[in-house]
């Protein structure tokens, strides 16, 4: 349980948000060209990182907007929040 600083509404309880999982998984440009392996990679395979993870959240019980979060999954500490379309911060790897 933690607070998330929604870039549109400010700091709110995590229970107001819904997690959208790993961020920056790019939707295939030409789905018809994809092999089964590439589909599996896109749909199912996840980094599932223990440590610093880039992820998407939706403020579902608030402004209902999507945004990105950098969070350390080993202690739930949020390191950065940035809007959709913005470049991810480079100081976290």
């Amino acid at each position: 349980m933690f607070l998330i600083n929604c870039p549109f509404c400010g700091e709110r309880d995590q229970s107001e948000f819904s997690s959208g999982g790993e961020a920056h998984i790019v939707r295939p440009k030409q789905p018809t060209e994809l092999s089964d392996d590439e589909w599996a990679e896109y749909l199912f395979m996840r980094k599932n990182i223990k440590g610093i993870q880039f992820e998407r959240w939706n403020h579902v019980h608030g402004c209902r907007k999507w945004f990105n979060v950098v969070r350390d999954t080993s202690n739930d500490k949020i390191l950065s929040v940035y809007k959709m379309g913005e470049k991810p911060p480079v100081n976290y790897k």
Partner: protein
Amino acid sequence: MKNKYSVFSLIKNALSQHENWQQAWGNPEPKKEYEAIIVGGGGHGLATAYYLAKKHNLKNIAVLEKGWIGGGNTGRNTTIIRSNYLWDASAGLYDHALKLWENLSQELNYNVMFSQRGVMNLAHNLQDVRDLKRRTHANRLNGIDAVWLNTEEVKKFCPIINTSPDIRYPVLGGTLQRRAGTARHDAVAWGYARGASEMGVDIIQNCEVKGIKRNGDIVEGLDTTKGFIKTNKIGVVAAGHSSVIANMAGLKLPLESKPLQALVSEPVKPIIDTVVMSNAVHAYVSQSDKGELVIGAGTDSYVSYTQRGSHNIVEETLKAILELYPIFSRMKMLRQWGGIVDICPDASPIISKTNIKGLYFNCGWGTGGFKATPGSGDLFAHTIANDEPHKLNAAFNLNRFVSGDLVDEHGAAAVAH
């Protein structure tokens, strides 16, 4: 067995103030090389080592555990055992495990306190009723005992349930698997550890895996906090940390690790003699032999390795418990904890070879791995020893996420994941 437990050994040791019991398993330093290494000393890992030694005649095996054996999800779950899964592949897998449970105390000469007190799954709306009835039919076609109970029969089987029609989620009926029940979770890990150790398996605690050494597509050994250990067969049974280990071999798995919580109340006199699960309101409850109510909550929605879980999840679960069992309204909760569960997109496990020779994964059990412990160990041992899956775990391969042959138990398996 060198040190067989019996009523006579109990009397003998009682006379010497229980000071002369032998250590149940060894505490060796790792050797330089093993035929096979199991990563993860939980129930599934220890069971795998046990069956490798017992049925496949491998003698030079080690189990590496970064903490202490049974200290992960084996010691954190709500100990529910059942096999009433919808699909044929799952029914085969979980009923294989249930059959092994039925004789496990005798097999291990260790009382795992397996108690077939029945598991009842409640229906709260018309769709639940249809789904659960369909599942009882599917179960019976697969030779698994299952019956449908109407509201009156539910009330008769578990009188403390509030079956009033005017509650928010009224009880419209339920299914019952009488062969299902609970077991003592620690005893399962300890029993397998003792059995495996007796057959020469090295159980190495406080030994964390730091890297997997590969030569091309063949594994050569493991870097650990106790040095490099050579082996050509690695079975990874690391539950919530499976992706972390996979990453060391350059593999990605279709898993997300999330905290799952459970809690127990203060101990009270016997009040509920079965296990009741409710999918729609997500509450399940049983009572331990010590008298505590054992309550299972849901998972958090986000990836986390914190072994804590959020308070709002517990709150929602207790709300549901109170509506179903108003009698518990003044119970105090004693302890709450979280475990990290590795959830597959189809909510079914992976017991599989990988495209790296000698590297095997047993993971993705998500919120319900405890019930499968003996079967999981048995089938994973078979897979490692023969480099081929057993027919019961063939469907649970890693390649199903490429081929599309998912075993979709999400929601179908009588509990929300």
